[in-house]
């Protein structure tokens, strides 16, 4: 536009003024001249006729009064001819020229006008006046030239002056304004319109100057606001990219430049979706760009948490990403803003945490939790798709030996090496996990039991061939493997694991280092399952306080009514109100290391019983059976000591019964246990003596107070001399060692009398009293 104003002379204001004023005036003037010239011929003829008439009248009126021409006629004619542009004037009478006047003008072609002048004297003939003019056309021509020259010159002068004035008044200030506008447009902010004039241009200049100043102020404010916004955006720690409403990049802050690898100048105006690719972390598939959705739907879009930004150099940067529309006050979409944040560290940490939560830290294999999920998934697939999968449960044999002989570091190393070896022969789809300790599980997907057996055999062979070297010591371990095919009969992973656990346990019971396949109708497995069921009941009883304390009196052999001792027995109460004997649940509890918990429960409740029953009877003592597991547990010893102190109990009324086998398995520990509690005045009895190892050597070392002779020697005491002799011998040894003896299984009076004869101190058995609820029997007996 600016160029047009400055260079196009056809359209500028000066040209228009010139065209309108100058040429308009010129044409109008010449038109007017044409009109004037149009009547010039008629006017000239009329003027000439009038001149002839005028001369004739003057001659008649002034010079024929006396009836003849006066002498001054010639002077008069000369004066008239000069003033009226007449070439010649002749006065004739009777064709004779009587007076003649002729001008100096020479002309070849003339035209004459005649007039007859009546003589005042009637006798004389009239005069004839002949007035000669130059040729009419010449006269007209001359007059036209004069008029055109004068008019044309005046018009030209007037037009030039008018043009000059108009240009000075209108065009010059307008042109100056245009030039100023051009300079302002070209960026010269120092330029101002001339506002010192007092005319309309001055008013316009002031108005425009004020408007421009206001506009500049607003522009400055907007610029400052924009600068502030950009500085703010640059200072933000997140990557920020703004686009127009078509998704073309308008702004990137330095963080965005760093994360994307592109500079703003490099990508400004390009489609954001083309520049910044977003892919899924796991699959590397392109993700829908949030800015597209944001601009299309005019609302905030958050991207998937697994989003990765592809850097210019092709590297991947994990980011969290969101896009929001930029709207004006009327909610009209102006553009979009994408904000993203580098979450590499957080994502790595998350992955590490996820890995740690799902993997065993020692071996790097799946842990139990993750394996449970895999197993559940496989189980549901097996039920739905009828696919066959097999679970292989592996428990290392003799691993405890490695731990005990070489230390836990060696055990850990062994587990790591074995894990690596186990992984080598497996398919990618197989899932190997360490369930804990030396237990491993392998889930063989899409595998029938025959093939699973071969895999298990390979593993079995591989582990048997594996010799572990540790600081010059060679160790070898075996593995017991339980296999179970995932079938619809299993409800969940726990059941499958329990089944393979049972199978593995069975393999161990069969002699370790072998493979056993779980079958639903397997008797051994059924037994094992019952045991496990019993373990569950024991756990329920412990948590739900479902045990009951029974007691059986131990009476003096000299007086059956002299009862100051009771042996506490435990029963498990079912939901039906029936009691399960300890013979059914204690073996399972012992296998699953629950004996200490049971013993703790017994001790706690026995002490309560002693306190509660003290009002009725305060001179009785209670015998509490302890398992080998409890004796070997130092925490349990502390528990008893604390409880005695807590109940402020007379410890001499407490007698702990330990079996010969339990004591001998860890003799030193048992001796320490006994000595510690004896210092608190507790009593100890060696239970079931005679049927176990039955070494008097052990008896000599164990500082017990009572010796309970096993019932096997007592049952037939009335008929078996050998039993009687053995009981007598045991009793004699015990008495010499300062112990008192107790006979179990006293089932009739005769045995009771024999025991008295032998010198046994106490008797216990059905003949004396059957076991009953402790609180009841202590009160009654």
């Amino acid at each position, binding site marked *: 536009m600016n160029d047009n104003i400055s260079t196009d*002379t*056809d359209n500028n204001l000066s*040209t228009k003024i010139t065209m309108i004023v100058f040429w308009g005036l*010129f044409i109008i003037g*010449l038109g007017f001249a044409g009109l004037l010239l149009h009547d010039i011929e008629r006017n000239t003829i009329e003027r000439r006729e009038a001149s002839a008439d005028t001369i004739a009248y003057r001659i008649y009126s002034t010079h024929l009064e006396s009836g003849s021409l006066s002498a001054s006629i010639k002077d008069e004619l000369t004066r008239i001819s000069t003033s009226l542009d007449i070439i010649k004037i002749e006065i004739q009478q009777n064709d004779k020229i009587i007076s003649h006047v002729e001008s100096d003008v020479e002309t070849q072609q003339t035209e004459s006008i005649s007039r007859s002048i009546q003589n005042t004297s009637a006798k004389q003939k009239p005069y004839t006046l002949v007035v000669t003019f130059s040729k009419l056309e010449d006269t007209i021509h001359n007059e036209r030239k004069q008029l055109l*020259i004068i008019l044309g010159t005046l*018009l*030209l002068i007037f*037009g030039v002056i008018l043009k000059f004035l108009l240009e000075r008044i209108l065009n010059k200030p307008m042109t100056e304004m245009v030039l100023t506008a051009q300079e302002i447009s070209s960026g010269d902010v120092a330029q101002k319109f001339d506002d010192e004039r007092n005319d309309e241009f001055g008013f316009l200049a002031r108005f425009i100057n004020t408007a421009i100043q206001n506009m500049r102020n607003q522009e400055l404010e907007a610029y400052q606001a924009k600068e502030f916004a950009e500085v703010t955006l640059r200072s933000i720690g997140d990557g920020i990219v703004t686009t127009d409403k078509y998704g073309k990049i308008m702004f990137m802050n330095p963080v965005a430049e760093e994360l994307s690898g592109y500079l703003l100048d490099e990508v400004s105006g390009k489609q954001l979706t083309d520049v910044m690719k977003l892919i899924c972390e796991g699959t590397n598939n392109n993700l829908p760009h949030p800015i597209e959705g944001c601009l299309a739907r005019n609302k905030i879009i958050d991207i998937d948490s697994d989003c990765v930004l592809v850097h210019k150099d092709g590297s991947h940067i994990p980011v969290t990403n969101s896009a929001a529309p930029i709207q004006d006050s009327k909610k009209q979409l102006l553009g979009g803003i994408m904000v993203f944040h580098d979450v590499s560290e957080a994502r790595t940490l998350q992955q590490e945490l996820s890995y740690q939560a799902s993997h065993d830290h020692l071996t790097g294999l799946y842990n139990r939790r993750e394996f449970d999920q895999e197993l559940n998934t496989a189980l549901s697939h097996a039920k739905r798709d009828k696919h066959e999968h097999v679970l292989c449960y592996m428990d290392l044999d003799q691993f405890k030996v490695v731990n005990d002989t070489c230390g836990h570091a060696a055990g850990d190393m062994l587990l790591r090496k074995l894990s690596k070896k186990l992984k080598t022969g497996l398919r990618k789809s197989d899932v190997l996990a360490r369930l804990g300790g030396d237990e491993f599980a392998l889930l063989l997907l899409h595998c029938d039991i025959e093939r699973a057996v071969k895999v298990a055999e390979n593993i079995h062979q591989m582990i048997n061939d594996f010799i572990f070297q540790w600081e010059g010591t060679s160790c070898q371990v075996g593995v017991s493997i339980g296999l179970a095919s995932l079938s619809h009969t299993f409800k969940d992973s726990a059941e499958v694991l329990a089944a393979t656990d049972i199978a593995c346990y069975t393999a161990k019971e069969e002699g370790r280092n072998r493979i056993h396949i779980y079958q639903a109708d397997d008797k051994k497995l059924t037994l094992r399952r019952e045991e496990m069921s019993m373990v569950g009941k024991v756990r329920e009883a412990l948590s739900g306080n479902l045990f009951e304390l029974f007691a059986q009196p131990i009476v003096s052999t000299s007086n059956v009514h002299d009862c100051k001792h009771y042996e506490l027995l435990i029963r498990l109460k079912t939901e039906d109100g029936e009691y399960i004997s300890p013979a059914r649940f204690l073996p399972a509890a012992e296998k699953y290391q629950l004996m200490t918990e049971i013993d703790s429960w017994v001790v706690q409740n026995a002490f309560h019983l002693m306190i509660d029953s003290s009002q009725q009877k305060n001179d009785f003592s209670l015998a509490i059976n302890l398992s080998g597991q409890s004796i070997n547990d130092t925490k349990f010893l502390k528990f008893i000591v604390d409880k005695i102190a807590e109940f402020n109990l007379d410890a001499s009324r407490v007698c702990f019964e330990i079996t010969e086998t339990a004591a001998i398995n860890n003799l030193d520990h048992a001796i320490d246990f006994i000595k510690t509690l004896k210092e608190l005045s507790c009593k100890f009895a060696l239970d079931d003596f005679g049927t176990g190892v039955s070494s008097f050597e052990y008896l000599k070392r164990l500082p017990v107070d009572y010796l309970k002779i096993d019932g096997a020697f007592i049952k037939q005491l009335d008929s078996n001399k050998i039993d009687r002799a053995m009981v007598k011998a045991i009793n004699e040894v015990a008495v010499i060692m300062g112990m008192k003896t107790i006979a179990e299984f006293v089932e009739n009076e005769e045995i009771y009398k024999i025991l008295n004869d032998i010198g046994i101190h106490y008797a216990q058995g059905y003949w004396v009293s059957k076991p009953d609820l402790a609180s009841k029997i202590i009160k009654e007996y």
Partner: protein
Amino acid sequence: MSERHFRIVLGLWLILGLYLNIIEIIYALIGLLLFEGITNQRIPGLITKLRSGKKHSQDQQAGSNSRFSFEAERALRFLVALFVFLPLLQGFEIIWLLPWFVGFALIGAGLSGICPMVKTLKHIGLR
């Protein structure tokens, strides 16, 4: 010499010839205009070229956007020659005013710097 100056001089000569009724001047001017129109060697350009060796602006306008390649200035020469010559013919005396008009128009165009005829010709499409 620019076209403006040339127009003033040409107009003055034409008015002079008409005023003094010197037909030779009229014919000479007609001849000059025809020469310029036919050869496209215009006096202003020739004089400028002789003086400074520069090319006249007529060549600088060679690339302007127009429908015809024929130059408006050349056409103007032909038209002026025609308008001056035509009233000299028998039977065309009635348009005796036309040469006067052309003469004053040339002087006006020179003084104002704007020639309506050239503009009209350019508007029609001449270069």
